[in-house]
C-alpha cells in the first residue's frame, strides 16, 4: 500500500511541478506585488507598502472616495453584467437544450450549428458585432431604419445608456450554446422510465417539465450556472473590444488591466487583481451555499 502511494506521488510530481511553475509562482508573485509599490518601468525598484494598496489613503477599499472611485464603478458594472447575462443565458440555454433533447430529423446538424457562436473566439465575435452595431455603417442600424422602427441611428456601443446592455446581448448570443450544451448533457442522463410513467398517466407536458425534468436536472443546471457565473465575473475582452473603454462601462478585469498595463502600476494593479480573485471566490461560496449545491454528495 505504501508503495502504491509512493508511485502515485511519483506520477503526480511532474504535474505538480508544472502547476507550481505556471500557476503557483505567478499567483504568489502577483500577491506579493500587491503589497508593494512597483512600476513596470523598473520592476527591481519596488518598495514594500504593506496594505496601503488595499486600505490606505489611495487604496482600493477604505479610501474616502471609494463610492466615487472607478474601482467601485467596475465592481457594480461587473455584477450587473454577470447577474443579467447569466439569468438570460440560463433561460435561453435551458430552452435550447430542451429543444435539442427532442428527436427530430437533422438533430446532429442543428446541435453542431448551435455551437458556432461559442466556437468563435470572443475577440472575433466582439469585432463582428461591433461592425454590425456601428452607428454609421452598421447592418443592424440600417435594418432598423429600413423597417421604420427607428428614425435616428443608435450608437449602441458608444452611448452609455446602451453600451452595457449591448455587451449583455452579445454575451448572451455567444454563451447560450455553452449553457445549452451543459444542460443538454444533464438532460440526457435523465432516466427514461419517469417520462414513460408520466406519459402512461397522461400528465400535461408542462407539468412534466416542472415536476420531473426541472428537479432532476437541477444539479447539472446549478453547476452550469456556477461555471458561467465565475466566467462572467471576470469579463474583459467583450467590453474591451466592443465599447469605448471609458470608466462608465469598465469591468473589474478591465480596471486591473488599465492599472497594470496602461498605467504600469503593478503594485496597485496586483492588489486589484487579488481582490478580484477573492471577490469571485466569495461570490461562488455564497452562491453555492444559497443554492445548496453539495458538489461532493452530487458526485458520490
Amino acid at each position, binding site marked *: 500500500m505504501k508503495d502504491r502511494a509512493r508511485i502515485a506521488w511519483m506520477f503526480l510530481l511532474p504535474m505538480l511541478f508544472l502547476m507550481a511553475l505556471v500557476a503557483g509562482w505567478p499567483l504568489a508573485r502577483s500577491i506579493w506585488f500587491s503589497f508593494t509599490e512597483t512600476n513596470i518601468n523598473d520592476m527591481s525598484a519596488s518598495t514594500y507598502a504593506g496594505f496601503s494598496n488595499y486600505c490606505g489613503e489611495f487604496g482600493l477599499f477604505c479610501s474616502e472616495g471609494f463610492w466615487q472611485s472607478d474601482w467601485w464603478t467596475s465592481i457594480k458594472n461587473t455584477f450587473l453584467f454577470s447577474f443579467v447575462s447569466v439569468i438570460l443565458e440560463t433561460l435561453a440555454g435551458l430552452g435550447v437544450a430542451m429543444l435539442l433533447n427532442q428527436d427530430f430529423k437533422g438533430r446532429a446538424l442543428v446541435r453542431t450549428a448551435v455551437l458556432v457562436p461559442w466556437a468563435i473566439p470572443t475577440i472575433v465575435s466582439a469585432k463582428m458585432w461591433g461592425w454590425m452595431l456601428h452607428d454609421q455603417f452598421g447592418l443592424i442600424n440600417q435594418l432598423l431604419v429600413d423597417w421604420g422602427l427607428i428614425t435616428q441611428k443608435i450608437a449602441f456601443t458608444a452611448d452609455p445608456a446602451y453600451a452595457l446592455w449591448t455587451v449583455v446581448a452579445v454575451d448572451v448570443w455567444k454563451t447560450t450554446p455553452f449553457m445549452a450544451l451543459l444542460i443538454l448533457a444533464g438532460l440526457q442522463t435523465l432516466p427514461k422510465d419517469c417520462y414513460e410513467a408520466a406519459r402512461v398517466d397522461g400528465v400535461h407536458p408542462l407539468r412534466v417539465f416542472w415536476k420531473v425534468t426541472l428537479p432532476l436536472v437541477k444539479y447539472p443546471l446549478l453547476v452550469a450556472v456556477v461555471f458561467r457565473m465565475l466566467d462572467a465575473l471576470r469579463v474583459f475582452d467583450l467590453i474591451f473590444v466592443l465599447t469605448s473603454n471609458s*470608466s462608465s462601462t469598465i469591468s473589474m478585469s478591465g480596471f486591473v488591466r488599465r492599472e497594470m498595463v496602461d498605467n504600469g502600476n503593478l503594485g496597485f494593479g496586483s492588489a486589484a487583481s487579488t481582490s478580484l480573485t477573492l471577490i469571485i471566490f466569495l461570490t461562488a461560496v455564497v452562491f453555492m451555499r444559497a443554492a445548496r449545491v453539495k458538489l461532493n454528495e452530487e458526485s458520490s
Partner: protein
Amino acid sequence: MNKLVIAAALAAGGMAGAQAATITISCGSNAADVEYCGKFAEEWGKANGHTVKMYSPPASTTDNLALLRQQFAAKSSDVDVIMIDVVWPGVIKDHLVDLKKYSKGVESTHFPAIVANNTVDGKLLGMPWFTDAGLLFYRKDLLEKYGLKAPNTWDELAAAAKKIQDGERASSPDFQGFVFQAKAYEGLTCDALEWVHSYGGGEIVDKAGNITINNPQAAKALDTAASWIGTIAPGGVLNYGEEDSRGVWQNGKAAFMRNWPYAWSLGQAADSPIKGKIGVAALPAGTGPGAKKAATLGGWQLAVSKYSKNVDAAAALAMYMTSAEIQKKRAVGGSYNPTIPSLYKDADILKANPFMGELLDVFTNAVARPATATGLKYPEVSQAFWDATHEVLSKKMNGADAVKKLEAKLKQVKRNKW
C-alpha cells in the same frame, strides 16, 4: 545528398551572419504606414544586406504604449526600431538608446522644439520623423453651396455644421455636421486639449507641474463640445478613433472633421469619393478671456530599443528613415509633415500638400500635452483627463463638476510629486 545541402546552407548562413542582421521596425499600422515606411525600410535593407521585418503595433496609441512597456519590462529584443509618440520619451526613457553617437549632429537640421522634446537627461532618445498637429478638414464644395466660409470660432463651426447638415439630410439622411475623436483613449486627450486651450483654459498641468484644469474656461470648453453630440456630431463619435472618423468623412458623410494631416493624402487618393473637395484650416478658436486657435502637437520619432541585438544596424536604419530624402518622399506621397524646416520650402512637397505651407504656423505653435511635466505618470494623467471629458460628452456630468472632479483625481495621481 541531403547532408550536403544542409552543410552548404549552414556555411552560407554562417558567412552572411557576420554582417547581415534582421532588423524589425515598428512604424504604424494603417495602409499609408505600410506603403511609406515598410517599402523604404526594405529598400534600405536590400542596399545594406540586412533583412528588414515590419511589426504592426496596435492602432490605438494607448495600447501601443502599453504593449511596448510590457516588452521593455521583459527586456524583449523583438522590435529594434520603434516609432514613438511625442509624449512617450519621458515614460520610456530608460529603455532607449542614446542616438547622439549615430546622428553626428544631423538633429540640428530638425525643428529644435521636437529635438528638445526627444532629449531627456542630455540623451537624444528619438530622431524626429514626422510632426503632427490637429487640423480642421472641411468640404470646400459644401461650404460654397451654402455660402459659408471656413469657421474661425467653434460657435461659427457649430452653426455652419448645423446648416449644412440640415440641408444635406434631405438627400442623405445620415449626413453629419462634424466628426472627431471621442473614444476614451489618447486621441480624446488631444482633441479635448485643443478645446480647452482654445478657450484659454490652459494645458491641464502647467510646465511647473501645477494642476490648472479646474477653471471656468476649461469647463466652458467641455460643455461646448458636449453640446455638439447629437446635434452636429453623431452619438457614435463617443466610440470613434481617427480611422472611424475618417471612415465617415471620406465616404462623404460629414461636412467637417478634426484629424491629423495623414487624412489629407488618403482623402485625395484616386478612389476617394471626396477627392478635390477637401479644404484644410486651423482649428477654430474659443470665446471668452484668453481664447485663441489651438492645435495639439502630435508627431512621431524613431527610437532604438536598448534590448536590440543589432543596435548599430538599427540606429543606421533609424537615421536613414528620418533623413531629408525619405522625409520628402513621405511628405509628397503620404502627407507626413516633415520635421526639417527647410523641407517646408520644397516645391514638390508644397505642390502635393498646399496646406503645409499655409499652415506652417499651426505646426510650429502647436500646444504640447503635459508629458514633460508629468513624466512617468503621464499615461494616468491623460487617462483621467479623457475619462472626465468622456463623462461630459456623454452628458453624465457638466463641465464645471467634471473639471473639479478631475482636479481631485489628478491630485491623487500626483500624490507627492510627478
